[in-house]
Structures are given as structure tokens and as C-alpha cells.
């Protein structure tokens, strides 16, 4: 597939990297020539210098051969014009990043349909969605939805109070009873393991589970994780994201306290929000935070414009007893540091937006879906080929390659989580987890000669 990306910012970079590593043909268009030269050296992509809103540049970049067009520059107008241009060249799928609400609300005269864009994405909205999803599943640090949200991939850190710590997966299987879940990956000190029956879960491991949505409470109980909705949430920073998150949370009946430094902006927020308590102070003043009950907070969401403030306020909140924090970070380079500092979840809006675009593009396609947080394990969706070998064969009889595991099976829009006795049918879509080294084994396993 030939993919054209306009804008070599963080989103464009992230997407180019992911797509080119998958072996797609990526053409990146940007106006900054020196940046392009650097990226061309680093990634296996072609770069074209020029404006994405210019037909000549796009033609030079080979737009007529492209199958997917993604416009992610900083300017809404450039992105939209570029997308409209790409429609003239019959590009099949078009995605644009926009900030302004004028294009985003479904009722506006220039919405997705009117503009002829398949997906309009706003980093702030994507970020809000991600935060809301993470706040639902209270202790998970990573959540990925599959099959329209029927099955979820949840990442948890194994705490010392987890009763399953030290158990092997075989023992866990006996414990779990009729609930269906599957440990698909364990990340131990940064290295991923695709577990088999004898592998044990140890304290401080990060484990990834495939769970049906309805089974989440049962699973969380098994692992001694609090599964209740958060009662008290602090939001530091009343910008776009802070406001939208507050709004969504208060609709769920959660007690929200929104901290904002600027008094004028506080008044606007107070006017727009219903039940949220808007507090006017700097999120780094610990005595005020304590007075307002930060020690009882189930969740602290730091989303100011400053990375420093976000990191420090999260650390402060955790220090005073807040249970979990979600921290916005503009520079994704810092994310690996933050886990060590004790920050539970660090999100970069641009990376979240890029991941959302990836998920949208890959819907139904046979390509990998996601990289598990900062490790070498990946997820791929594969169709079972029509071959005698796979017909009605139970999974355990198939000698599935080491380092890979089937996390879920999608059959006729039904999703289920397999066990060793599950049989495959040709045409099933399998969601497979694997370490980087095992990809070739998986490919040759499904190769039909």
C-alpha cells in the first residue's frame, strides 16, 4: 500500500515510522527540508519537499498512486485543502487532523461528509477519549479495544498484594473458573515474554490480558484490583482537554475538581461546567491540594500546557496519597522515564492521535495493530487460510509457534477468547500476540503453499 503523509511533526513521524516498519510505501511531504533529510536518513521512506496544499507538490509525490492520504500538519486549513485535493486524485481513504470545533461537531456545516474526509481527528479529542477509557478501568495502564470494543486488551502492573503473583498460568487457569481471559504477554524488566502454561506471574511484571468486556469486573476481583468507578477525580489544567474530560466525567456522576491557574479562565469554566468544582490555584501548591482532599483522590489527571507542571503535580499528588495519575506529556521521549518516577500513565496527545489513525486504517486489515507499550511485543490480525490443516483442528494440536499466542478469535462478528480445545475455522480472524523474533514463524505457520 502506498501511503502519503503530509506534515512531518510528531504525528507524521510516528505514523511514517510505524507504516514503513511494516513494509508499506510511505511518502512524507513537508515544508521543512532539513527535517525531511533527517527523517529520510532514519526511516525507510521517500520525502518530498513542498506544501501539502499544492497540487504540484502532491503530484510530484505521486498522489495518483496513493491508497491512503493522511494530512497532519499544524494547520487545519492546509490539512483540509490537502484532503480535498487528494479526493480529486481518487485516493481511497483520507484522514485529516483538525483542531477547530467548527469541523468536529457532527452538526456543523463542514463536517466529515461535507468535506469528503473519512476521518477527522483532533489530538485533544483523541486524548480525552483515551483518558476517559483509562479512567473506566481503574488500574489498567493500557487499554486497547478490539472487535468494536467487545474484547479488550488490558495492561496491569502486578502489585505485591495481587493474589495471583507467583502463580503459573496453569494454576491461574484452574482459579479463573468459567471466566474467560487470557494472559497474552508478560513484560518483565522491559523484555516481553509470550507466556506458556509453565510461566509464572511475578510481582512488578506488567501483564497484558485479553478480556471480554463483561468479564472485566470478575477478572479485576481475581487480581484484587479495585474495579469501582473513581469517586473523586482531580484535574490539573483547565485547557481544552481538561474541560472536555471534566465534562465527560461529571456526566457519569463522578465528583470532579478542576484546578486552573488563570482566574478569568476559571470563571468561563465554572459557567460551562455543571457540577465540577473549579478551583483557582497553581496545581503545585501542596497545602491547597491537601485541603481540597488530594489524599483521597482516586485519580489525578494532569493536563496543563507545561510538561514540567504535569510531571511535578502528578508526583506531588501521588506523594500525598492519590491512587493513580494520568499525565499529559508533549514530548514522547520522556515517557520511558516517567514509569520509573512512579507516574502510572503518561500520554502524549499527538501519539494518541497517531495511534487512533493507525487503528482506523487497520480496521479489518491484516496488519499489526499495536505495539505493546515500549517493548518488542506486537499484535497482528490474521485471517485463517482455507486449508485442510486448519479445518476443525484444536489449537493445541496445531503446534503453534513459540513466542506467539492467539489472543482472540473473531468469527462471523462474534468474538471469543480461545483455549487449547478451541478449533479454528477457515476465514476466522485471529488476533495474535508475538515477540518481534517470532513474526517469521507466525508467517510461515499460516503460509499455504
Amino acid at each position, binding site marked *: 500500500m502506498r501511503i502519503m503523509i503530509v506534515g512531518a511533526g510528531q504525528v507524521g513521524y510516528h505514523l511514517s515510522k510505524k507504516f514503513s516498519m511494516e513494509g508499506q510505501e510511505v511518502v512524507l511531504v513537508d515544508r521543512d527540508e532539513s527535517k525531511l533529510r533527517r527523517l529520510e536518513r532514519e*526511516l*525507510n521512506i521517500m520525502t518530498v519537499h513542498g506544501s501539502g496544499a499544492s497540487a504540484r507538490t502532491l503530484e510530484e509525490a505521486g498522489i495518483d498512486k496513493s491508497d491512503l492520504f493522511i494530512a497532519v500538519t499544524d494547520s487545519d486549513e492546509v490539512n483540509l485543502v490537502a484532503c480535498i485535493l487528494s479526493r480529486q486524485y481518487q485516493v481511497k481513504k483520507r484522514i485529516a487532523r483538525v483542531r477547530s470545533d467548527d469541523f468536529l461537531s457532527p452538526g456543523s456545516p463542514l463536517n466529515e461528509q461535507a468535506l469528503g474526509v473519512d476521518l477527522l481527528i483532533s489530538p485533544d479529542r483523541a486524548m480525552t477519549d483515551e483518558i476517559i477509557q483509562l479512567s473506566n478501568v481503574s488500574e489498567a495502564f493500557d487499554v486497547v479495544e478490539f472487535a468494536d470494543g467487545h474484547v479488550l486488551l488490558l495492561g496491569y502492573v502486578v502489585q505485591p498484594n495481587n493474589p495471583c503473583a507467583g502463580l503459573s498460568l496453569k494454576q491461574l487457569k484452574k482459579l479463573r473458573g468459567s471466566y474467560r481471559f487470557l494472559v497474552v504477554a508478560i513484560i518483565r524488566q522491559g523484555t516481553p515474554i509470550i507466556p506458556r502454561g509453565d510461566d509464572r506471574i511475578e510481582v512488578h511484571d506488567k501483564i497484558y490480558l485479553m478480556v471480554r468486556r463483561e468479564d472485566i469486573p470478575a477478572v479485576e476481583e481475581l487480581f484484587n484490583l479495585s474495579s469501582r468507578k473513581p469517586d473523586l477525580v482531580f484535574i490539573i489544567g483547565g485547557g481544552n482537554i481538561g474541560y472536555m474530560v471534566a465534562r465527560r466525567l461529571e456526566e457519569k456522576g463522578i465528583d470532579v475538581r478542576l484546578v486552573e491557574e488563570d482566574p478569568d479562565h476559571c470563571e468561563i469554566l465554572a459557567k460551562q461546567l455543571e457540577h465540577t468544582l473549579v478551583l483557582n490555584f497553581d496545581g503545585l501548591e501542596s497545602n491547597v491540594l491537601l485541603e481540597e482532599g488530594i489524599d483521597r483522590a482516586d485519580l489525578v489527571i494532569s493536563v496543563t500546557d507545561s510538561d514540567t507542571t504535569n510531571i511535578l503535580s502528578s508526583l506531588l499528588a501521588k506523594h500525598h496519597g492519590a491512587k493513580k495519575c494520568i499525565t499529559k506529556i508533549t514530548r514522547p521521549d520522556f515517557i520511558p522515564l516517567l514509569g520509573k518516577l512512579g507516574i502510572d500513565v503518561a500520554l502524549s496527545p499527538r501519539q494518541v492521535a497517531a495511534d487512533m489513525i493507525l487503528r482506523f486504517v487497520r480496521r479489518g486489515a491484516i496488519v499489526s495493530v499495536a505495539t505493546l507499550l515500549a517493548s518488542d511485543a506486537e499484535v497482528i490480525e490474521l485471517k485463517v487460510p482455507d486449508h485442510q490443516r486448519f479445518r476443525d483442528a484444536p489449537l493445541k494440536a496445531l503446534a503453534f509457534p513459540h513466542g506467539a499466542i492467539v489472543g482472540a478469535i473473531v468469527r462471523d462478528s462474534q468474538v471469543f477468547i480461545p483455549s487449547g480445545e478451541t478449533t479454528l475455522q477457515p476465514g476466522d480472524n485471529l488476533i495474535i500476540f508475538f515477540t518481534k523474533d517470532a513474526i517469521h514463524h507466525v508467517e510461515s505457520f499460516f503460509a499455504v503453499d
Partner: protein
Amino acid sequence: MRTGEVLNILGKLLILLSLFLLTPIPFSLYYQDGMAVTFLFCSLCGAILGGLLVAIFVSEKELGYRDGFAVVVFSWLALALLGAMPFYLSGQMPSFADCFFESMSGFTTTGSTILSQVEVLPKSVLFWRALTHWLGGMGIIVLTLAILPLLGVGGMQLFQAEMPGPTKDRLAPRIQDTARILWSVYVLFTLLEILLLLLGGMDFFDATCHSFATLATGGFSTHTASVAHFDSLYIEAVIIVFMFLAGVNFSLHYHGLRGRLSSYWQSEEFRFYLALIVMAVLIVTAANFFARTYDSTGENLRTASFQVVSIITTTGFGTADFDQWPPICKILLVSLMFIGGCAGSTGGGIKQVRVLLFFKYARLQLRHLVHPQAVGAIKLGKVKVPKEVLISILGFFGLYIAVILLATLVVTGLGVDIVTGGTAVIATLNNIGPGLHLVGPVQHYGHLPATVKVALSFCMLAGRLELYTVAVLFTSDYWRMARKPKLRWQGDKFSAVRENKE
């Protein structure tokens, strides 16, 4: 620098080359020259050595920007060493230094030989000599990129380090596809030339070897008299055309083959190249005419065109002993040696585009002297040349002069006379083949001392990889960045966990 990864890739390349070492075997069996077992042995040695490297050093699956230089330079050295084995075992070359020189001369498409009589070599070894040209012409690493998926990550670094020219054209978003396109064009032209030479009455063996040597702009012939052996206007014409084509940027051929013939003319470098050739042919013909070197004007023009194209494309085939020509022709040919082919071609030398930009830069400076306030840009065709490219070209010239001076000092210091030594350095650094005087077109390099041969082999490699790639390995900065390789048995925690499981 990721030392382990570099050695791992080196191992894979050796395995690939050991496969190519099997290709002379059919010729050996057909001509019954008794070299089949030798080639099998060489191939096995290469495969075992390569296999060991792959087995010992763990691939880190990632190649940094810097690693490309080391991979390319060490691969070429290793390939030249392995490629020298059949020469050595054939028993026709006196020392291993000779074999190494011959092999390096093959891979770098120089075409300088140490043999006074080429025909003494068994046919299969002659084929191997031509094949080293062909593999080195478009580049064995570019070939690996094209046919094997193993160099996926970091392929751009390798491509840049091996392909000639100050800037590289990308014909497809993925570097693998670009490499595939270039090699396809190369193979297509080779097949076409073989066909045309067969029509001219050459036998299959000679046609194949000469086509390999032409398209790679190498210059090894299967006969001591080179192309003059055939004494056929048709064959010379075919070879002139293909030498000319091999000296053109292969991206232009790709566009041309897709029907966009205008892209040739739109390329300023191509126009410069063509104009230079026409001019040089006219001057040489005229000089020979007045000096009465040949009896007829037709023969004058025929030898002049062949020699000029052969030299400017850095092929080095001969139909005449230009050492006997008037001095103006000799100095003209030596100057053409410096210029070489176009960027992105298989030719050596400084490259047309660098020379062109160098002159444009000088012209801009002159204009600045007259109009100090003038704002000028250096353009190639319709595109402005980025400043970094210009600076890199100036740096290239500096490095180039330094290498020539140094190499000439070494060579003359070892007792070779000025004309022979100087032109030997020029002819090897620019990957041409014949120089003047004792290394002239009808002479050979065999009589030079072994140390000179090694020094000249180094010039060939530096020239083929365009100096920077080789020179950077001589900076201490580069080696300070080297990392310890990861060996297969020093399993890290992760692999230990995995092994426990199995």
C-alpha cells in the same frame, strides 16, 4: 557503531557471494578446465566463514546511520579477499597480493590487471573475473537490498554508502524497491548487450564476459588485446553505446524505459556528459589527424570515439594504444579520467555532476566579484542545489586531492617513475584501468612491487566508494562510537528466559 550487527551482515553477504562463486562451475565443466572443484571449495569456504559470523554475532535488527560505512567498507574488503581465492588457486598468479589486486580491480570495476597474457587463465576464472565486475558495478550491497529482505532496517544507510553521487535519487518510497528497479534495469541492459554481441559473431562466453565488463564500466576482457582482438566495427559500436549508457544515471534509464525519454534531455548532467564526450572525440580525432597517427579519418574517428567513451565512463577497454598518441590526446584522456561517469551510474571518477556544480560555483563567485550584492543560487536543471550538497562537494574535492597526492607519494616512494606512478594512482582511484607509460593500455600492473599493488588496491576501493565512506573509518571519532558486539552464547536475561521455556 553496532559492531555485532556489522559483522552479522558481513557474514550474510559472504554467504551470498559464496552462492555466486558457484556460477563459474558450469563454464568450467563445459570447457573442462578442471577448476570446478576449486570453485566449489572457495564457495564452501565463504559459506562456512559467513555462517560462522552469523552464528557468533547476534543481529541487533537495527542499523544506525553510522554503521552503513563500516558494513560497506568491510564487506567490500571481505568480498575482494574471498574473490581472490579462485585466482590464487588457479596457480596462474604469482602472489596473493597479485590476486587481491586483481579481485579488487574486478569488484571496484577498475579493470587493471597484473597479467601480461590474459588467455593463460582457465575460462571459468575469466568468467569469475568478469562476474566480479558485474557484481561490483551496481553494487553487491544494493543487490542484497534488492533480493534479500534481511537488510530491511537501515537499508538507506547502506544504499547511500555504496551508490555513487552526491545525492541519491529515490525511485520508490521503499529503498528495497529502488534497489530492485536499479538492478532490473542493469540486468535488462546486460541481457540486451549479450544478445547484440552474439549477433555480431561473438561466442556466448565472450559476449557474456564483455557485457558484464561493459555495463559495470569495468574493462576486464577475455583477451589480452582487449576489444581490439575482435577487430569488428559492429562490436566496437555496440560496446561504445553500452559503455555510454552505463555511464548515465540509471534512474534516467528507468524513466526512459517507462516512456519518458524527455527525462534524458531534461537532466543537465546528461547534457553536460554528452557535450563533453562529443567535444573530446572531436579534439582527439583532430589531433590524431594532424599527427597522422592513423591512415584514414574513419579509423581516426573510430578509435577516438572508442577510447574517449571508454575512458570517460571509466571502463578502460582498449582498441588502440593511446600511449603512442600525441601529448594533447594523452593529457586530455587523463583529465577525462578524473571526471568519470554521471552520479548514479556504474562509472567511477569524480562524477559529472560534481564537476558541473564545481564550475557553477566558480562562476557564481566570479559574478559576486562583479556584483557584490547579487543574490545567486546554484541550480541543477530547475532545482536549487542545497548548500549542504555544495559543501560536501567542496569537501570531496579536498579529500580527493589529498588522497591523490598521498597515494602518488607512496607509489613513487616505492620506486615507480612519475608518469607510471601518477597515472596508476589516477587510473585506479577513478576505477578506469589503464594509465600511461609502464601501465599503459597495452601494458599491465604485474611488474609493480607488491606494496604498490596493495596501495593501489586501496585507491580502487576508496574511489569506488567515493572517498567519504572509506575516509570516515580513518577518523578516531568513528571508532569511539563502536560498541561491543553481542555474541550468541552471551545470552541476555530474555533469551535465558526463553530457553528455559523450551
